[in-house]
C-alpha cells in the first residue's frame, strides 16, 4: 500500500523499523559472526563485533568431530521423505474434497485439524512402545512416518485451500469435452496446482526440519537429525561458543534461505486458511 506521507515521516518509519528489525535479527547475526571467531575471541571482553580474525576453523572442527554429514543427511531424508510421502497421501484427498465435496467434507477437514492438536506428550509412550515393537526406534523410516503423520493435516489443509481457488468451470468444460477423470487430473488440474503444491512442500519441509519433540525422543544415534545434533551441545565442554555457533549456523542456514521464500505460504499454512 503506497500511502502518501511526508519524507520526514517516512524517514522516521524507516529508522525505527530497521532498528527493531536488526534487534530481532541480532541473535542470528551474532551466532553467524561468532562462528567465524576463535574460541578465545568468542568470549573476549568487551565482545568483538567485526574486528576479529575471521577463521573457518570451527566449521572444520565441528564437521570432523561430530559427523555433521550424517546428521544433515538424516534431516534431509526425514524432512524430504515425510514431505513427499505426505503429498502422495494428501493430494488425492485434498483434490476430492475440493472438487467433489459432500456434506461431510467440512467435518472431515475439521477432524483432520483436530488430530494436529493432540499434544504429542500425551501419546509419547504408546508411540515409543510401538516403535520398539516394530523395530522403528532410531530409524529414519520411523521418523519419516511420524513426521508425515503429524504434518498431514497441514498438508491436506493447505492443498485444499489452493485447490479450491481453481475455477470449477474449467473442469466442467473439460468434462463436457469428454475428458476422463485421469486426463482431468493429469492435464488440467496438475499444471494449475503446481504453485500450491510447491508452497505446501516448502512449508512442510521447514516444519519437519525444525520439529524437535519426536526427533529428540525417538532417535539416538543412527537416525538423529540436526535438531538432536544441536541438542548434544547442551552440556558445555570448556570453550565452545564458536563451535556451537558454527554448528548452529550450519543447522539453520538451509532453512533460513528456504524460509525467506515461503513467507506468504506460511500464513496460509499455519492458520489453516483462516488468514490469507
Amino acid at each position: 500500500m503506497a500511502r502518501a506521507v511526508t519524507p520526514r515521516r517516512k524517514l522516521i518509519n524507516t529508522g525505527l523499523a530497521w532498528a527493531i528489525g536488526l534487534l530481532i535479527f541480532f541473535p542470528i547475526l551474532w551466532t553467524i559472526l561468532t562462528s567465524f571467531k576463535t574460541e578465545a575471541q568468542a568470549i573476549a571482553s568487551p565482545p568483538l563485533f567485526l574486528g576479529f580474525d575471521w577463521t573457518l576453523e570451527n566449521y572444520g572442527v565441528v564437521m570432523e568431530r561430530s559427523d555433521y554429514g550424517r546428521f544433515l543427511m538424516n534431516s534431509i531424508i526425514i524432512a524430504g521423505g515425510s514431505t513427499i510421502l505426505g503429498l502422495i497421501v494428501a493430494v488425492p484427498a485434498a483434490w476430492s474434497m475440493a472438487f467433489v465435496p459432500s456434506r461431510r467434507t467440512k467435518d472431515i477437514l475439521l477432524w483432520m485439524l483436530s488430530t494436529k492438536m493432540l499434544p504429542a506428550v500425551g501419546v509419547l509412550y504408546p508411540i515409543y512402545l510401538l516403535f520398539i515393537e516394530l523395530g522403528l526406534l532410531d530409524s529414519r523410516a520411523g521418523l519419516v512416518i511420524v513426521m508425515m503423520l503429524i504434518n498431514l493435516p497441514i498438508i491436506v489443509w493447505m492443498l485444499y485451500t489452493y485447490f479450491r481457488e481453481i475455477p470449477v468451470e474449467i473442469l466442467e468444460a473439460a468434462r463436457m469435452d469428454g475428458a476422463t477423470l485421469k486426463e482431468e487430473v493429469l492435464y488440467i488440474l496438475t499444471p494449475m496446482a503446481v504453485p500450491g503444491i510447491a508452497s505446501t512442500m516448502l512449508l512442510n519441509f521447514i516444519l519437519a526440519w525444525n520439529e524437535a519433540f519426536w526427533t529428540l525422543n525417538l532417535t539416538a544415534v543412527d537416525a538423529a537429525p540436526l535438531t538432536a545434533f544441536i541438542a548434544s551441545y547442551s552440556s558445555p565442554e570448556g570453550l565452545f561458543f564458536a563451535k556451537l555457533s558454527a554448528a548452529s549456523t550450519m543447522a539453520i542456514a538451509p532453512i533460513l534461505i528456504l524460509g525467506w521464500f515461503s513467507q506468504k505460504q506460511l500464513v496460509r499454512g499455519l492458520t489453516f486458511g483462516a488468514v490469507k
Partner: protein
Amino acid sequence: MATKASRSAARLMMAPAVVLLLGWMLVPLIMTLWFSFRTYLPLRGGDQGWTGFDNYIRFVSSSAFWPAIQTTLLIVLGVLVITVCLGILLAILLDQPMWGQGVVRILVIAPFFVMPTVSALVWKNMFMDPVNGLLAHLWRFFGAEPVSWLSDASLQSIIMIVSWQWLPFATLILLTAIQSLDSEQLEAAEMDGAPVLKRFFYIILPHLSRAITIVILIQTIFLLAIFAEIFVTTGGAFGTRTLSYLIFQRVLESQNVGLGSAGGVYAIILANIVAIFLMRIVGKNLDT
C-alpha cells in the same frame, strides 16, 4: 454436478489420508487411556494390573502438579501477551511506507525459521551465560552485577526465548490482516481529524480482532507443548517444569507409564478445550 462414479472415486482418494490419521489418532490414544488405568512400571515389574483412577488422583495430588500447571500458564500467558502486543505494534509499523520494507520483513521473520534447539542453546550460552554471555557484558558495562538468567530468573528467561521465536509468527499474521484493511477508511478518519489512538482503537483493532484470536489460539496449542526449549536450557529445573515436561519426565525418565499416561490424558483434555474454540473459527471460515 458430481456423478455417482466420481463420488465413489473421491471417497477412495480420501481413504488413505483418513485411515492413516484415524490410526495415528486412535491407536496411541486408546493405549494412553489403557495405561492410565494400570500400574505400569516397565523397569520395575512391568504391568501390574488395574488400579482404577489411582493414577489420575496421584498425578493431581503430587507436589509437582500445581507448580507445573502454574508454570505452564505463566509461560503461555507471558508469551501470548508479549507476542500479541508487540506483534500488533510491529505489524502496524511494518505496514507504514518506508525504505527497504522487504528486507526489514525478512529480518523480523527470521527467528521463526530457527530450530528450537538452536534458539534455546544460542540464548542460553551466548546471551544468558552469567560469565561470558552478551547480556553479562552489557550488565557489566553499565556497572551492574550480571544475572544468572536461567537459574535466578528462569521462567522469565524461557518466556523471553519463546517470545523471540513466536513474535515473527504473530507479526506476520497480523501484518497480513492489516494489509487487507481498507486504507481509504483510515485516510477518511485521518482527514476527519481522528487522533492516532482513536484510529487505532476504533478502526485497526476491531479489524484485527479475528486475526488476533487466531494467533492466540494457534500459539496456545503450540505453547502448551513446548519441549525442546526447556529440555536443552534448564531440563525442567528452577521452576520451569511445565505440564508437558512433567509428563515427559514421568513417562521416560522415571518410567512410570501409568502415572504419565494419566497426565497425558489431562494434557489432551486441556489442549482440546483450546482446540474447540479454534475449530469453531476455522469452521466458520470454511462456509464463506
